[in-house]
């Protein structure tokens, strides 16, 4: 019953929000309230739906095949993540969506997207999976293109990728249906286990590549940064935190459940060089290259979108090891990343709300003006950098340990290189935004209202609590691992049990707290201190005032710039970006001309293509 409600509620929400779009101009509060209620209800229902795990429900029949859906441990986990982050984002938008009439369909498309995502994770057969995938992709596109011109253009880039991914997935669906004779996962699993290598490779390529594209795994990540960065800031948080992870969900579902690890590992030349090795390498590249690209970004949102690619690499790293520790790390990292990236972007949105910019070279010194946003970002970046005691550390610890002990030293090194890059870029983020000299123009900036502070505080609590008590998350993970056919992790409340490795976050946090208190005692034992003006500062004997630019934030990592200057401008990173950008622009232009620029038209065309493909399929059968 809750399961059906989970699908129904977003639809209802969508319908009402669609109808309410006219009122946005007059009283945005109505729409906002509706969205708030809707998403709160979804979150509540999602929490309750846990009781129904394992039950299968049948939906309408399409092309002679019944669409089935139901909750598994994995999908319930994802449903919770989706519902939770959506609710928090909505709370934040209550305050932050100041000029709501710029985004009349914002909430409607959000409902649609939630419908697509929840449907996707709950589908229990290939056809419904594909349908939900398409709904989700389109909803994502529509959410992205809300707002200004640049976001429309960037969203078009996403669309090209999404259509390609959809087409490939369609091919995969058709292929598997033709070969196995059924859309059901169970049948497909049985079929693949007995199929020969060529069929498996074809199926895997056709099915996994779309997921890699959606998960923005290198080198198919090109669409993500501009698409996410140019959308509305809270939407950036939303998209970065959960949307990209849908590709990863597909990957987990198909690799571990539908195809099975044994089948996957058959592809390769030896035990050490197989498809998973390829995935590991791709994941390592995904972790390293985008992270270092993030280092050179000048826009806070863009910087973080590069990280959402890079952190996806970590998740894939953990998952691709297929070990107990690794998958636990990968799965946990999905949750962790979602929490702290949302936290960071909410802080950025809070800053943007007051200053009107996310350009890192225009900000500075805001810590005294927006301490809550600063604190939020601080918790977030400690998590993102993977420093104890925040939750990001725990998942990274799992991933490292599994890589080192699993015999992937260089992949582990790559992961660490990416960590160093992450630390560097997040420090740049917080330094350029909140530290350094406060420009005179920001003297009047205030903290945001409590509505916007609420999600920041909640997420801070979550990031910290799940860092100190990773066991709370690991208990879900262990259940999912059982479901995926992996030995479950022997968790404790504070980390993992002694046999699996040494980690007890509670002790670490306790020691940290105590030593921090020691530090504080030493500090207060010293003489009195007084806070001075930022212009009372060492300048080699020169007098400072507001007219002297005395703030270092442009080109923050200049030594890297000197080393990679040539490499960076000629490297595949950049040229792939450029070429893909050009390709996307060309294709987008082509599509626009062909479909007269009306989204609705080419949506219709697209649906027609899908129907024709499916009809053709039916003919064959």
């Amino acid at each position, binding site marked *: 019953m809750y399961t059906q409600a989970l699908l129904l509620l977003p639809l209802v929400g969508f319908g009402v929000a669609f109808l309410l779009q006219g009122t946005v101009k007059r009283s945005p509060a109505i729409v906002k309230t509706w969205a708030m209620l809707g998403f709160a209800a979804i979150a509540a229902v999602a929490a309750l739906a846990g009781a129904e795990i394992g039950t299968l429900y049948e939906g309408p029949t399409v092309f002679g095949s019944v669409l089935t859906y139901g909750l598994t441990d994995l999908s319930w986990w994802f449903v919770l993540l989706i519902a939770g982050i959506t609710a928090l984002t909505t709370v934040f938008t209550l305050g932050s969506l100041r000029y709501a009439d710029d985004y009349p369909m914002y909430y409607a498309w959000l409902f649609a997207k939630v419908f697509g995502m929840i449907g996707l994770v709950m589908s229990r057969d290939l056809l419904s999976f594909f349908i939900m995938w398409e709904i989700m992709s389109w909803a994502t596109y529509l959410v992205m293109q809300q707002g200004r011109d640049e976001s429309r253009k960037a969203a078009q880039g996403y669309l090209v990728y999404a259509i390609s991914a959809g087409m490939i997935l369609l091919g995969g669906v058709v292929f598997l249906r033709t070969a196995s004779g059924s859309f059901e996962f169970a049948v497909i699993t049985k079929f693949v286990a007995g199929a020969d290598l060529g069929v498996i490779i074809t199926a895997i390529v056709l099915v996994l590549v779309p997921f890699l594209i959606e998960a923005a795994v290198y080198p198919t990540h090109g669409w993500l940064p501009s698409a996410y960065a140019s959308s509305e800031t809270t939407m950036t948080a939303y998209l970065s935190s959960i949307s990209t992870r849908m590709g990863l969900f597909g990957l987990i579902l198909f690799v571990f459940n539908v195809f099975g690890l044994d089948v996957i590992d058959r592809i390769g030349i030896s035990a050490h060089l197989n498809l998973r090795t390829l995935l590991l390498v791709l994941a390592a590249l995904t972790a390293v290259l985008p992270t270092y690209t993030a280092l050179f970004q000048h826009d806070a949102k863009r910087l973080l979108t590069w990280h959402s690619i890079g952190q996806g690499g970590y998740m894939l790293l953990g998952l691709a090891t297929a070990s107990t520790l690794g998958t636990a790390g990968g799965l946990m990292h999905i949750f962790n990343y979602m929490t702290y990236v949302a936290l960071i972007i909410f802080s950025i949105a809070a800053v943007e709300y007051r200053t009107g910019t996310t350009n890192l070279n225009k900000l500075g010194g805001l810590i005294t003006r927006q301490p809550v946003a600063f604190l939020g970002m601080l918790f977030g970046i400690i998590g993102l950098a993977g420093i104890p005691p925040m939750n990001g550390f725990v998942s990274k610890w799992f991933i490292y340990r599994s890589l080192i002990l699993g015999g992937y030293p260089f992949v582990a090194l790559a992961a660490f290189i990416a960590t160093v890059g992450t630390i560097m870029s997040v420090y740049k983020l917080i330094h350029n935004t909140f530290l350094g000299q406060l420009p005179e123009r920001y003297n009047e900036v205030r903290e945001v209202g409590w509505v916007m502070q609420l999600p920041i505080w909640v997420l801070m609590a979550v990031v910290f609590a799940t860092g100190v008590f990773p066991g709370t998350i690991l208990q879900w993970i262990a259940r999912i691992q059982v479901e995926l056919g992996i030995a479950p992790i022997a968790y404790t409340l504070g980390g993992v049990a002694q046999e699996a490795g040494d980690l007890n976050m509670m002790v670490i946090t306790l020691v940290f707290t105590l030593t921090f208190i020691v530090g504080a005692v030493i500090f207060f034992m010293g003489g*009195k201190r*007084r806070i001075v003006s930022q212009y*009372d500062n*060492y300048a080699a*004997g020169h*007098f*400072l*005032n507001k007219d002297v630019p005395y703030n270092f934030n442009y080109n923050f990592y200049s030594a890297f710039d000197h080393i990679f200057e040539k490499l960076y401008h000629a490297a595949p990173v950049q040229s792939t970006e450029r070429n893909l950008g050009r390709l996307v622009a060309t294709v987008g232009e082509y599509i626009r001309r062909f479909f007269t620029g009306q989204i609705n038209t080419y949506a219709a065309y697209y649906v027609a293509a899908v129907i024709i493909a499916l009809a053709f399929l039916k003919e064959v059968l």
Partner: protein
Amino acid sequence: MSDKELTQRSAWETVLASLKKRSLWMLHYCTGCGAVELPPTMTSRFDMERFGIMPMVTPRQADILLITGYLSVKTLKRVILIYEQMQAPKYVVGFGSCTINGGMYWNSYATMKSLDRYLPVELYLAGCMPRPEAIISGFNSLIDRIDRGEANSWKDYYENYEFYRKNQEHTFGDIETHRSIADDAQYYGFVEVTK
């Protein structure tokens, strides 16, 4: 400080003073030509570090402001800024005759003549220019003064700020250091809080 006050030092303060005197950091600022005798004082031959005296880079870190010779008005302004940026207890040491009465620059239009009108001077080293031995002997007497609890001239800047400020303004007009010495004096309790 009167003798009565000196005897009032607690045992703890006495011990502390004898520890604190072992570490004195001097601001690395060549205000005048006397700075040329500092490198020999710091390096192998005279090795100032024997006494725990080291050059330090920024005024925040330093205890001693060594005025190495004459101060042109332009430098004096910077020196006052730097002095106010230093953390108390801080000791101004006037080095060379020209800090005492202008020395051979007595008729120069560009140099100040008497350092103690602008900053509270703890110690003067006479000579033009004093030799490294003189610097070391001067620092040793500063160390002795700290040990005995007599090196308190820095408090004078807080207590009689008006005097110094008047002379500073007379020489070069207004100066903005983004710091209110009078407020500081009250905050840290160097003067009675005015109600």
